[in-house]
């Protein structure tokens, strides 16, 4: 019985389109409709914003492509590539970051100027380089070190200031944001130590956000 059902499903998949075609012969408009549907679905994946961020334990400068979504556009997801410049003591590095931002409010200050009084979220940063590993190298006994040296989990809170771009040729809006952040290892270090204060474990970063459409 089950086998039969599978076969029927398979047949429907293969001949489904043909059946439809037999019922209503392929018209130009149907094809266009279908095409539009597929295109609009994929179009949602086109990044709608860019960010350029300075510092924040994810590189010196990091640039991103990202998306904003939700009923009140309260969610943002950004994917960054960043770099750490070569210095006298160390090689240069590439970094990559996946960042999720939650913005509960947007306040209108005046026409075309908004404040997001709180932006908060998490980001995962990965650094690429010889001494940075995700999985403990084979030469170590099992569980020798418990953390992935190249991957840091960060939390942040900040604010953003947004200007609407009136000239639609230039895009939708432009924002300045700043954040304070810390990461998993700093938090672990601060726990149970009164010597390590909040001031010791936070970092500051700022950047620009550009929404195209």
């Amino acid at each position: 019985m089950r086998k039969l059902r599978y076969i029927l499903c398979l047949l429907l998949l293969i001949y489904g389109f043909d059946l439809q075609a037999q019922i209503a012969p392929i018209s130009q408009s149907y094809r266009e409709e279908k095409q539009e549907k597929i295109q609009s679905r994929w179009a949602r994946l086109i990044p709608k914003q860019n960010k350029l961020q300075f510092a924040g334990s994810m590189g010196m400068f990091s640039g991103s492509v990202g998306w904003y979504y939700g009923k009140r556009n309260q969610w943002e997801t950004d994917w960054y590539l960043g770099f750490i410049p070569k210095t006298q003591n160390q090689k240069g590095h590439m970094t990559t970051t996946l960042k999720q931002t939650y913005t509960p409010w947007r306040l209108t200050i005046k026409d075309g100027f908004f404040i997001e009084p709180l932006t908060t979220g998490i980001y995962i940063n990965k650094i690429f380089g010889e001494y940075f590993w995700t999985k403990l190298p084979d030469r170590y006994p099992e569980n020798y070190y418990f953390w992935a040296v190249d991957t840091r989990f960060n939390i942040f809170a900040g604010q953003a200031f947004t200007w609407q771009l009136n000239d639609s040729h230039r895009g939708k809006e432009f924002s300045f944001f700043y954040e304070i952040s810390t990461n998993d290892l700093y938090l672990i270090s601060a726990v149970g130590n009164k010597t390590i204060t909040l001031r010791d474990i936070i970092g500051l970063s700022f950047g620009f956000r550009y929404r195209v459409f």
Partner: protein
Amino acid sequence: MKTITPLLSGRWLLLVCLLLTTSCELFEYHPYDTDAFDQTGVNQSNIEEIEAQDDLSDTLRFAFMGDTQRFYDETEDFVNDLNNRDDVDFVIHGGDITDFGLSKEYKWIYDIMKNLNVPFVSLIGNHDVIGHGKNVYNEIYGDFNFTFISHRTRFICLNTNALEFNYSTPVPDFDYMLGFVNDSADIDQTIVVMHAAPYDEQFNNNAVLMFNYIVEQYKNVRFCLHAHQHKLNESDFFDNGIMYYGCDDMESRSYLLFTVTPDSYNFTVEYY
């Protein structure tokens, strides 16, 4: 949408400006960055201090501790405890200054240890090597292997974290070790200090006998010291009478206090 008075927006901007003008060290590129540190060459400047001490008495007294790692409060208490006594010439930190090898950790521990009234030197531990940690160690403390003389005693401090360096650096560095075999300095005795002891998983155990062979050549080796094991330890690894003493970590709130005279030596485990 709500409307807020423009006055408030001015305040927001003021806050931003205030935040931006605070010190630059808040802008971190990466936790493993080899920051510009205020203090560099710490071991060398402390060694100069040790060697400038009045060491005419034939009694040498020093504290040996290690594995400060994430035990910041305990390390601070150690510094306070040691500052309450006036019979110690200097302190040796046996390595694992940090837990993750992060720049900030190096800074935090240094900011505590610098309050010691007596000079201190720090060896590199396996945790200190991770990421760019080894570069930070070089920047703050100096070379992985170093030496100093106090009370006619040669201290040889060695990097023994072979597993960490994965053959990229000679560990232990026999060339460096051999340099003290016919010591031209005017000394009576030798004490060898390391982070990981022979036969530990960090040690290059293929080189253990050669290591011992060189140590045996040193002038009047009194004993060897190591940290790393997070427990008190006493071993005669090579059945040759050269004792290896291991200190506990800072979490145990203890350190070893050594008193060395020409005829004998003893040590006590000091709890604070």
